[in-house]
C-alpha cells in the first residue's frame, strides 16, 4: 500500500452560530494515500466543503487529529493547493498574474524572475490557456476561469490537489472536457487529489475511492466505495462498463435511498 499523505483521525467540527453550537462533522476518519484520487460526495450542506477546508488548513478541527505527511495540519501550506468552486481569481490581475502570484510565493526564495515566469507559462500551458495569459478573468469564459484556477493550484507543485466542486457551475460539455483534462494532468503529475462533488458520474469517473458522507448535522463517513477501473479511463467506453454501472448504482442507493429518507 502506498504511503499515507493525509491522515484524518476522529475529526469533529462544530461552529458557533447565533442559535448555539452547530456540529457539522463528527468522528471522521480517513487515510488518503499517495497518488490516490478521492471523491467526497454527499447531499448539499452535509459538510463536504467543511471537510475539504479542514484538509486545506483553512479551518482547524474542533476535535480529533489531522496529519499531512506525518505533521499536524496547523494552517494552509503550499503542499496542499486548493481549487475553489467559484474559481476565486483576482479580477484586477491577468490570468498570468493570478498564477504568478502563487508561483512567486512558493518559489521566489530559490529561483529568479525568469524561472518564475517560465513556471507560470508552463502551468498555463498545462491547462491549454497560453493564448489567454494576458486576459483578465472577466474577459474569459467560466470554463477558462476554472482552468486558470487549476493552473494556479498546479503551479505550486502541490503534493495534494484539493478541489471543491470545481466544475459545478459549468455546462455539461465543458465539464466533461475539464474532467478529461484533469485526469490527464493527474496521471502525468501523479498528484494526490481530493475532490468534492455532488455529481455521481464525476465521482466514479475521476476517483479511486468515493467517500460518501451522511446528512448533517453531525455528518460522518457513511460508506467508502472503491472504484476498480483501469486508467486511463475513457468516458465513452465506461458508459457500457458493468462495474461503472454498479458503482453508480451503489452511490445512488446511498444518496437517494439511505440518506434521503433521513433528510425528509
Amino acid at each position, binding site marked *: 500500500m502506498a504511503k499515507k499523505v493525509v491522515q484524518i483521525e476522529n475529526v469533529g467540527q462544530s461552529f458557533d452560530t447565533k442559535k448555539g453550537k452547530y456540529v457539522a462533522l463528527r468522528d471522521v476518519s480517513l487515510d488518503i494515500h499517495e497518488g490516490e484520487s478521492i471523491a467526497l460526495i454527499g447531499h448539499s450542506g452535509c459538510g463536504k466543503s467543511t471537510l475539504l477546508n479542514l484538509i486545506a488548513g*483553512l479551518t482547524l478541527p474542533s476535535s480529533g487529529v489531522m496529519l499531512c505527511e506525518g505533521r499536524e495540519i496547523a494552517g*494552509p501550506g503550499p503542499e496542499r493547493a486548493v481549487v475553489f468552486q467559484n474559481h476565486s481569481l*483576482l*479580477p484586477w490581475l491577468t490570468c498570468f498574474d493570478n498564477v504568478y502570484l502563487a508561483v512567486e510565493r512558493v518559489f521566489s526564495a530559490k529561483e529568479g524572475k525568469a524561472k518564475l515566469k517560465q513556471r507560470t507559462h508552463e502551468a498555463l500551458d498545462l491547462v*491549454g490557456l497560453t493564448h489567454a495569459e494576458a486576459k483578465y478573468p472577466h474577459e474569459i469564459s467560466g470554463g477558462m476561469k476554472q482552468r486558470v484556477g487549476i493552473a494556479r493550484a*498546479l503551479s*505550486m507543485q502541490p503534493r495534494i490537489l484539493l478541489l471543491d466542486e470545481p466544475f459545478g457551475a459549468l455546462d455539461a460539455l465543458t465539464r466533461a472536457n475539464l474532467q478529461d483534462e484533469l485526469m*490527464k*494532468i493527474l496521471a*502525468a503529475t501523479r498528484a494526490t487529489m481530493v475532490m468534492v462533488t455532488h455529481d455521481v458520474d464525476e465521482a466514479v469517473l475521476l476517483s479511486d475511492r468515493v467517500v460518501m458522507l451522511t446528512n448533517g448535522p453531525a455528518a460522518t463517513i457513511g460508506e467508502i466505495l472503491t472504484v476498480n477501473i483501469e486508467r486511463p479511463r475513457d468516458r465513452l467506453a465506461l458508459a457500457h462498463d458493468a462495474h461503472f454501472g454498479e458503482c453508480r448504482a451503489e452511490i445512488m442507493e446511498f444518496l437517494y435511498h439511505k440518506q434521503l429518507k433521513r433528510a425528509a
Partner: protein
Amino acid sequence: MTAAAIADRPMAGTDMGAEKLAASRNETGNAPMASVGTSVATQEAAQVDSTPVETSSGRGGEWLRAIGRAVFPPVLGLALLIGLWHVATINGGGIPSPGKTWDAAVILFSDPFYQEGPNDQGIGWNVLASLERVAIGFGIAAAVGIPAGFMIGRFAVLSQMLNPIISLLRPVSPLAWLPIGLLVFQRADPAATWTIFICSIWPMILNTAQGVTRVPQDYLNVARVLNLSEWKIFTKILFPAVLPYMLTGIRLSIGTAWLVIVAAEMLTGGVGIGFWVWDEWNNLKVEHIIIAIFVIGIVGLILEQMLMLIARRFTYEDR
C-alpha cells in the same frame, strides 16, 4: 478566420499533448507537477479570438445618429431653460436677462486673470483659490481618512470605538466647525480649508471601512491558501478590492467639499468664488452672480466626472 480553422488548432494541441504526456509518464516517476507540457485545449480556445467582426458598411451613419441621440436631449433641455429664463426676465426686474448675462460673461472671461489688489481679482483667480482650498483640505482628509478607514474596517474594536463618534459628528454641517477653525488657526484661509477637511473626511472613512469589510471571503481564502505575506495581501488583494469603495468616498467628498467651500468663503472673505459671489451681491451685479452659479456648477461637474472616470478605470467586473 473560418470556424473550421479555429476548431482545427486546439485539436492538434490535444494530440501533441497526449504524446508528450505518455512520454513523460515513463520518465518522471514521482516528479513534481507542472514540469509536464500537456497542452489540452477545447472549443473555449476558439472563443477568445473569434470576436465578431463588425461590418464596415453604414458604420459612419450609425455613429452620427448615436451622437445625435446622445446630444440632442440635453441641448433641448438647456435651450428650454434659457428660453424660460428669457421669458421670465422680459419685463425687466431684478434678475438680468440671458442676453445681458451673456454680455457680462464675455467681458468677464475676456480677462479672467486680472489682478487689482487683494479684493479685486479676476474670476479665474477666485476659482483657482477655491480649488486650492478644496485640494488642500481634501488632500489632508484623504491622507487621514483613508488609512483610518482601513484600520476601522480591519479591526472590529476600533470600529466599535469610533462608529458612535462618527455617527454623531457626521450629520453636523461643516460650517458649524468654522468658528473652531477660526479660533484654532486665527486666520480665515486655513479655517475655510479646515471646514473642507471636516466635510470630506466622513465619506472617506466610512466608504473605505465599508470596502474593507466587504472584501470577498474568497479572496481572503486565496490569500491564506497561497500563504501571501501581509504586504502582498495589502497590495494585491485588500487595496484593489477596496479601491472602488474608496473612490466612491472620494467622489462623495469632493461633491460636498465643493458645496461647502462656497458657503465657507462667503463667511471668511478673501479670495475665492464664494467670496466673489458675496462681493458681487454687495456691488449688486446680479448678472455676475448668475455667471458664478454656472461656473460653480461646471467646475463641480468637471470634478465629479473626472473622479467617475478614474473610478470606472478601477472597477473590476466580477465573476
